[in-house]
């Protein structure tokens, strides 16, 4: 049995480590490319949302390389179409003559735990160890990403940060034990610290939106890198750990209270979070907000008019980018560059007003 799973940004590394830790034979998904998306789109239902098509492309490529079992999570709460991904994907793959096993994780962390335990036949302690290991790996990934947001616009030699990150994530895939992981964390942070930077004030832009598209650098055309290289510090609240923490601490309740004037109830997915984060960015004095969403994403397209209203009320520059298989990188580049011009003007104007 060879397992595979969808590609999802740098988190893929952590998932791969988890599978290896549990002694599963794993075919790690390769980075999503335009070709992957094309393959997935060819067989996917036309009106379904974009991540499903990308996932299908990942699966097809993994199947070519010998995978026969697919691990697919469903939505951890929330009324989102992610719930039905595995059913539709299985159906579509069967129709195209690919007979693969689907192991569907139900909507709880406990279910993921028990199903993985059954699959790998690992002992309970081994499972606990693997869980802690994975969470540590996830937090390291997010920490490195967060550091990079700060470093990119300030680095003197352009591209240094990304070089370090690339090699770090490559090394991370080979890690086997917990102590190695801790050592890796120290080394990677040290390497990042050694990058020469110029300490200065730069405009800050917050990224809000759908979790898959904001976290996967392959489908959002490395928007964080792009913005960083254009001299903007990126911030992004939404991440896998944030989502899990939210589930554990029921923070939806507090989020709902904060956004009450704008939205009276959940709209599924991370609709409420987008509003909450945007309000937070406005409060913290950010210079722009970018919303990323897969085209026709139900929660995000529902809250977009509300985000636009906040933009009109507060004057913070706002750009909404919907991604799908037809979006070309050049188009996104142009829009980002134009947006950054607006952000810089906004930033400079506010700097001027502050001084006297």
């Amino acid at each position, binding site marked *: 049995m060879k397992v595979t799973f969808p590609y999802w940004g740098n988190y893929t590394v952590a998932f791969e480590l988890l599978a290896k830790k549990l002694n599963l034979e794993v075919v790690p998904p390769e980075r999503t490319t335009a070709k992957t998306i094309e393959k997935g789109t060819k067989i996917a239902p036309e009106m379904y949302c974009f991540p499903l098509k990308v996932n299908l492309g990942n699966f097809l490529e993994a199947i070519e390389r010998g995978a026969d079992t697919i691990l697919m999570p469903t939505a951890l709460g929330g009324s989102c179409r992610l719930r039905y991904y595995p059913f539709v994907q299985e159906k579509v793959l069967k129709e195209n003559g690919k007979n693969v096993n689907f192991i569907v994780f139900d909507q709880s962390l406990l279910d993921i735990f028990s199903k993985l335990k059954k699959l790998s036949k690992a002992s309970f302690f081994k499972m606990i160890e693997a869980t802690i290991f994975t969470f540590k790996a996830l937090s390291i990934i997010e920490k490195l990403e967060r550091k990079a947001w700060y470093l990119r616009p300030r680095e003197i030699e352009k591209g240094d940060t990304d070089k370090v990150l690339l090699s770090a994530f490559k090394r991370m895939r080979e890690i086997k034990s917990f102590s190695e992981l801790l050592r890796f964390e120290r080394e990677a942070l040290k390497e990042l610290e050694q990058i020469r930077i110029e300490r200065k004030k730069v405009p800050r832009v917050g990224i809000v939106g759908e979790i898959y598209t904001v976290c996967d650098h392959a489908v959002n055309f490395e928007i964080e890198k792009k913005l960083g290289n254009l001299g903007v510090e990126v911030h992004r609240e939404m991440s896998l750990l944030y989502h899990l923490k939210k589930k554990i601490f029921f923070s939806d309740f507090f989020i709902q209270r904060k956004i009450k004037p704008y939205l009276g109830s959940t709209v599924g997915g991370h609709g409420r979070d987008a509003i909450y984060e945007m309000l937070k960015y406005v409060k913290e004095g950010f210079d722009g907000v970018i919303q990323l969403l897969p085209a026709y994403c139900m929660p995000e397209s*529902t809250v977009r008019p509300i985000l636009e209203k906040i933009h009109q009320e507060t004057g913070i520059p706002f750009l909404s980018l919907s991604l799908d298989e037809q979006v070309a990188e050049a188009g996104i580049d142009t829009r980002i560059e134009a947006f950054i011009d607006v952000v810089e003007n906004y930033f400079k104007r506010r700097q001027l007003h502050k001084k006297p």
Partner: protein
Amino acid sequence: MKIGIPRALIYWKRPYFWENFFENLGFEVLLSPKTNKEIVEIGVKISDPETCFSNKVYFGHLKWLEGKCDLIFVPRLRRNEEKLEYCPKFFGLPDLAKILVKTKILTKTFDEGKEEFEKSLLKLGEKLGKKKEEVEKAFREALEKEREIKEKQEKESLEKLKTNSKKIVLISHPYNLYDEYVNLRIKERLEKLGVIPILIEEIPLTSRISTNNSQIFTNVQEDSCSNSCKFESYNISDIRAQIRENSQNPNISDIRGQIRENSRWPSFHWEFAKEMMEKIDEVLKYKIDGAIEISSFACGCDAVLKEFVEKKFKENKIPFLYLVIDEHTGEAGFQTRLEAFIDTIT
């Protein structure tokens, strides 16, 4: 006081109910007109480009009502009595309406997972300054009227199902089925082409109660096949009485479980999805010549549903046509596709 109700989207979930309810409470009700070109154009202009077509039509109706009444009623439908969710786009409607129109929005959350429907109604009445008894009376009367209409519809569609001529099931959400501008008068077109359209919405759910009933129905069907005159003398209310008797059958839950197992669809958390799939199971007990699913462009839920609906009809070797409608749908293209489809089944 004048209360405006947009005649689109959630209105069609319970047509006649809301207007009757408010009228019984003593308010003047202003229903927006049937969907027309101007309404659609306004809706498309003011709404988010990526929201579904049905939503755009709804916003067009909202905009039409703006300034013509004191309050516009936009309920927030969350969950139904089975604790199944409505479309997530309904959740945000009142908030989006507040952004789009200047007229005051009257809203109330209906979450039957948390609160009974009647209680929510009482709270709504309180907001409007009405007494408990008044609201209860208005509710009962509106419900009675709704039931009458529903029963009549179901009776008619049952009769249609049992006829010998070519039948086509129209599968869609009520707001696509009943809005004639939106679905380009598909019902009329099909009738002109010589087939009987049957709306999935109007099919009574008997499978829920007992499988024995389906036997009754199949008997009727056989009878009607041999002699169509005989069928006319068959009294529907008798059948209903029999169903009611059967519903006291103790092993209902077993049968329900069986139905679930036999029909391989994931357990949907959307009320319309569950209902639709169950109704399709019901329809498949009769002789059906074809099925058409109408879906509004960019409808996220339909993207999921279509896969399973299509599978079901394909398994039963029934021709299936999938039509997507939006503001650009041309009548000529629509007609051609329908004609071609009818040719394949006759």
